[in-house]
Structure formats: C-alpha cells, structure tokens
C-alpha cells in the first residue's frame, strides 16, 4: 500500500475492501455506455455493483474462510451456480423449529450448505463482521458521492 495510507492499518480488511471496491467501481464505470441509461441498464449496473462489493469483500478476506471461498467460487462460475440453484430449488424440504432456522442460516451464509453446525456458526460470526464493515464503507462512499 502507499505510504500516505499509513494512518490506517493497510492490512485491515476494511482498508483492503475499500481499495478493492473502489477499483471495481472504476472498472465498472469505464465500461459504462455513453447513452443515457435505461432502467434495464440501471438494474444491471446495480447488480454488478452489488456483486463487485461482495467479490471485493471476499477477496479482501482471502481464501482462508469458507464463506469467502464460496463467494469467489460462485462469482467465478456464476451461470453454473444459477443453474444448480434452480435444480436444487425443488428439493428444499420443510423442517420444523430449530432445524428450519439453521437451514435458513445456511442459505444466508455463502457456502453454508456444506458446513456442519459448528463451522457454520463460526463462519456466520466472521461473515457478520465483514458485512458490517462492507456496509460501513459503502455508506461512506455513498455519503461522499452525494454530499
């Protein structure tokens, strides 16, 4: 990282995420069409930005976490993942009580379908922390852009 960033911890997840996310935003902006955007374009751009934020968070975390590995893999082969999810959609069984909630949590945390409960909770804790950071940084960026 650059020396003038030494006021913050350059290796913190927050810094790395902000850096990666801004780079991704720039790359997205570069490929933006010059014509005034249609609603469809806006929706596509929104999805791209959302995906970019998740991807940059996952790559900032690295591959040592299960959920970030899952996010990166999902983004790398997105079409395949969508097809698989469609196939799996009919197989979801309804359970009751706590199991149902755990399954819901599994669906929320990326890559949680293949985890046991213990590591699922571990990954959930880390994922919540990263999501909080992500929201914070994105809100700061939006505030900067809109004020």
């Amino acid at each position, binding site marked *: 990282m650059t020396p*003038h*960033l030494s006021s*913050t911890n350059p290796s913190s997840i927050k810094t790395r995420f902000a850096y990666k996310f*801004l*780079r991704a935003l720039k790359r997205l902006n570069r490929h933006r069409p010059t014509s005034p955007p249609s609603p469809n374009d806006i929706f596509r751009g929104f999805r791209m930005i959302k995906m970019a934020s998740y991807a940059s968070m996952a790559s900032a975390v690295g591959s040592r976490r299960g959920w970030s590995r899952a996010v990166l893999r999902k983004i790398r082969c997105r079409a395949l993942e969508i097809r698989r999810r469609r196939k799996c959609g009919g197989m979801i069984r309804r359970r009751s009580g706590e199991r149902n909630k755990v399954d819901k949590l599994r669906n929320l945390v990326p890559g949680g379908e293949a985890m046991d409960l213990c590591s699922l909770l571990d990954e959930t804790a880390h994922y*919540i922390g990263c999501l909080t950071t*992500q929201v914070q940084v994105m809100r700061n960026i939006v505030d900067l852009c*809109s004020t």
Partner: protein
Amino acid sequence: MDPPIINEASFSAANPSSYSLTEIWPFPINGEPGIGGGLGLRMSSLSGFGEAAMNRDLSVDESTVTEQSGGGRKRRYANSEDESSRLVSTSSGNDLNNSSGKRMKLSQSRDENGGSRSEAEANSESGNKLAEKSTKSSEPPKQDYIHVRARRGQATDSHSLAERARREKISERMKILQDLVPGCNKVIGKALVLDEIINYIQSLQCQVEFLSMKLEVVNSRVNPHIEGFPSKDLGPTTFDTSGMIFGLQPTREYVQGSQPEWLQMQVHNSFDRAKHDLTTPH
C-alpha cells in the same frame, strides 16, 4: 453346579481369610492324585462326578445347612485335606460326600480363582480409572460402571464425550454471535438467537443492496458528464481510502486531496439530482 460357584464367589469376596485358602488351594489340586490314590473311596467319587454323587451331595448339604457359611465350610475342607484320612476313615458318608462336593467345587474353582482374581484386579483398576476420569474404555465390571455413571450424571464413552465437546463448542460460538449481533444479548433461547442472527444478516444484506443501488444511481446519473475521465488516475496510489473507511474525516479534505476526478465531478455536477433520485426510490 451353580450353588458351589456362588458360594465360592461370595467366599472369596467376603472372607478376609481367603488369601490363605486361595494360596492353599492350588496345592491340593496338584497333590490330588496322590491323596486321592491313598483314599480309594474319595477317588472313586471324585473321578465319577456322577449324578448320584451330586444328588447325595445335595442331600447331605441339606442336612448340613448350618455349615454352608462359606468360609467355615471351606476351612473345614482345608482341614479335611490336612487330616483327610482321619476324617474319611472316622466319619461316615457325610464327610465323604462333602469332600466330593467340595472337590467338584475345587475343580471349578481352579478356573474361578483365576477369574475372580482377575476380576478383583479389574475392580481396583476400574476404581482408579473412574477416579481419574480417564476416557479409556477399560473393561470394568458393568455394574460398577453403570452405577458410577448414574451417580455423576455423565457418560464417559467416547461418543458422549465427543458430543458434549461439540455442544460446548456450539454454545461458545453462539455466545460470540450474541455479542456480535446488537440487541441479541437479552434474547434467551437458541431458536430466538438464531432468529435474531438471521434477521441481522438479512438486514445487512439488504443494506448492501440498497447502498449498491444508491451507488449505481449516482454513477449512472453522473456518468454522461464524465465519459472522458482520465484513466491515469485509476492507479491505486490515487485512492485515499482513509476518508471512506472512517468517515470521520471531513469531506473537504478528501476533495482537496488525491481524489479521483470522477468523484469530484459527481459531487459538483449532479449533487442535487443524485440526492433527489436517491431519496425517492426507497
């Protein structure tokens, strides 16, 4: 065959003087042929092990119930071993049958002695191990094992231990999560905590969606004005992420500093429009 075995077990377990007998007993067994050879009657009954002998033995035992108090009977047998000739010769068939019955017991108790001695060792070992709470699956007598487990309310086999460790781990993680999710500390119950966690993750993901929507709208509104923004500034050195990270630094500094130009243009050109658009959709 059963009553002598039971007598033997109770005797060896209860009688404190059993050590002498257990030490004594192997020798008579070894010296049996010699003695038996000297005593023709006993030898015949011994070698026969017949049902008739057994029946007679039982009938005699009925008559000598008072003598069946374990140690006394065996001590008497030991005496009869020492002074066997006298007893056999002087007394009638009672002693003979008794001795034959005891000899049957003796032949069984050769095995029984070994077995009971190993059992006693296992008992002491199991006591030590239970005291140490070691998880090794020794083969203690099952009654003791179950008894101790019931008393302590803990299972010590490996599956239960693993399951308990897993449950402790899970509750520990749940505690961490409770600390992480705001307003989750007061919630009691695993299902409710999970509910809170799920809601929090969903809200965070919704916030991410909302913020990326905001960003997209800001960018798309601004974009036509800045189609020719310089690509040199896209290098990583131009980013001053510290302002974005903490948000506490004033924006002026950010604008003055090494800010990419597209952000500046966004800020200056379409501030009002972007703000208007952002507030309306949600």
